[in-house]
């Protein structure tokens, strides 16, 4: 079983001091959730878990432990974030040791909560089924129906970059329509697209949870916090909200692994992944680049080709 193997491997790595710290997922008191755990002793390894609720992109924690040798539990998307970060030379001293787990795709807790009436007290996975118990109900749901949209559109679920792979690799799938939301928007008129975008972002409360959850947002001073120059006002006007979301997404161009951490972190349920998905599509289309797939390819916006597309330039 993957979880057992993970614990044994973690224990071994900590015992022989290959790593100082293992960042993984642990049991949490709420159902349908896990919590990041930071393990420093071999005995602690038994608190690691692996299930369909291990949704955080733990890569975001690496910035806090740059002086330690870190073992990081990664899914396919998380491993791609690590690759993208190493391209940006984020790990000059100790590149993290990646303990990869081929991803079975994760369950969207918000979708599960919507599907049942009342508070969920317990949720257990059994094969393809999800047994959800509450005070006066008990249902078994099909796991397949409750996956995250970002997981559905994931084409690289096995973390091939990982130093240690636990479990069997899953088959790479080529998706016909990887980003249905982007395609749907592309079919609309510019006016409809803008009103969709503005409607989504108008709910934003500027808590910056999307930024904090993202492993790629590590700037010491974010453009929203800069006061000189003051790029953006600290208001909730529709224009400023749109501004924030355009730039947050644009700063991910060619860097986003599509893990969906931004959208999961959003307390206002704003659709966010379609923005970065669109940008990912663009760089793939224009420059043949996919984040975290080629470990040597320079990030698309920090390089160029004299033959780049320039139809749009007069």
């Amino acid at each position, binding site marked *: 079983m993957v979880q057992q193997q993970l614990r044994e491997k973690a224990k071994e790595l900590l015992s022989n001091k290959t790593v100082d710290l293992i960042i993984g997922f642990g049991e949490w008191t709420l159902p349908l959730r896990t919590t990041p755990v930071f393990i420093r002793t071999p005995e602690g390894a038994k608190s690691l878990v692996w299930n369909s609720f291990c949704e955080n992109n733990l890569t975001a924690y690496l910035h806090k432990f740059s002086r330690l040798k870190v073992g990081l539990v990664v899914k396919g998307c998380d491993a791609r974030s690590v690759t993208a970060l190493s391209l940006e030379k984020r790990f000059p001293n100790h590149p993290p040791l990646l303990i990869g787990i081929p991803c079975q795709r994760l369950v969207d807790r918000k979708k599960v909560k919507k599907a049942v009436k009342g508070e969920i007290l317990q949720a257990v996975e059994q094969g393809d089924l999800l047994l959800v118990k509450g005070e006066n109900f008990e249902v078994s749901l099909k796991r397949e129906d409750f996956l995250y949209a970002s997981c559905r559109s994931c084409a690289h679920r096995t973390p091939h970059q990982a130093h240690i792979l636990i479990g069997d690799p899953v088959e790479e799938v080529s998706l016909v329509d990887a980003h249905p939301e982007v395609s749907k928007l592309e079919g609309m008129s510019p006016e409809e*697209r803008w009103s969709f975008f503005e409607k989504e972002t108008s709910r934003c409360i500027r808590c910056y949870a999307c930024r904090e959850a993202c492993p790629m947002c590590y700037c010491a001073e974010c453009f929203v916090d800069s006061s000189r120059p003051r790029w953006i006002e600290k208001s909730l006007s529709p*224009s400023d909200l749109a501004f924030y979301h355009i*730039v947050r997404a644009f700063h991910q161009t060619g860097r986003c692994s599509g893990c969906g951490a931004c959208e999961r972190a959003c307390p206002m349920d704003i659709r966010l992944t379609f923005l970065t998905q669109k*940008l990912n599509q*663009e760089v793939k289309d*224009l420059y043949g680049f996919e984040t975290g797939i080629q470990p040597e390819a320079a990030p698309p*916006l920090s390089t160029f080709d004299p033959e*780049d597309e*320039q139809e749009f330039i*007069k």
Partner: protein
Amino acid sequence: MGSEEHWEPKILAFLCNWCSYAGADLAGTSRVQYSPNIRVIRVPCSGRINPLFILKALQGGVDGVLVSGCHPGDCHYLSGNYAGRRKSATLKRFLEFLGIEQGRIQFSWVSAAEGVKFSQVVDEVTKDIRRLGPLKKFKKSSAFGVQSSES
């Protein structure tokens, strides 16, 4: 800006110091006529353009933005315009995807010898933006306070 009837497009032009800015100068000294709708900001290179400049301009009330730099291979800093080209291409596509009309943000290559081309580019851009009308989508309305004068 006056009422809708007397609306004139307000266009911000970022011009590269080494080519387009000199091209604009040449257009001026050659007495070439072109639309008076552009406001010029001189930048060291088209690669200097931060997408934030363009967004900030649109938010602050311009109806369109023109970015003009050196032809491929002519960059004073050897590769600034190539790097800028990638940023421009992705930003333009992204903003159009979000619903900012095609033509609001335009790009051109104008060398220091192309005064006439510069005037043609400005006329074309002005015509496009006049056709699109005033920018309404992204502009900050005064109800939420005016822009800070400090930068």
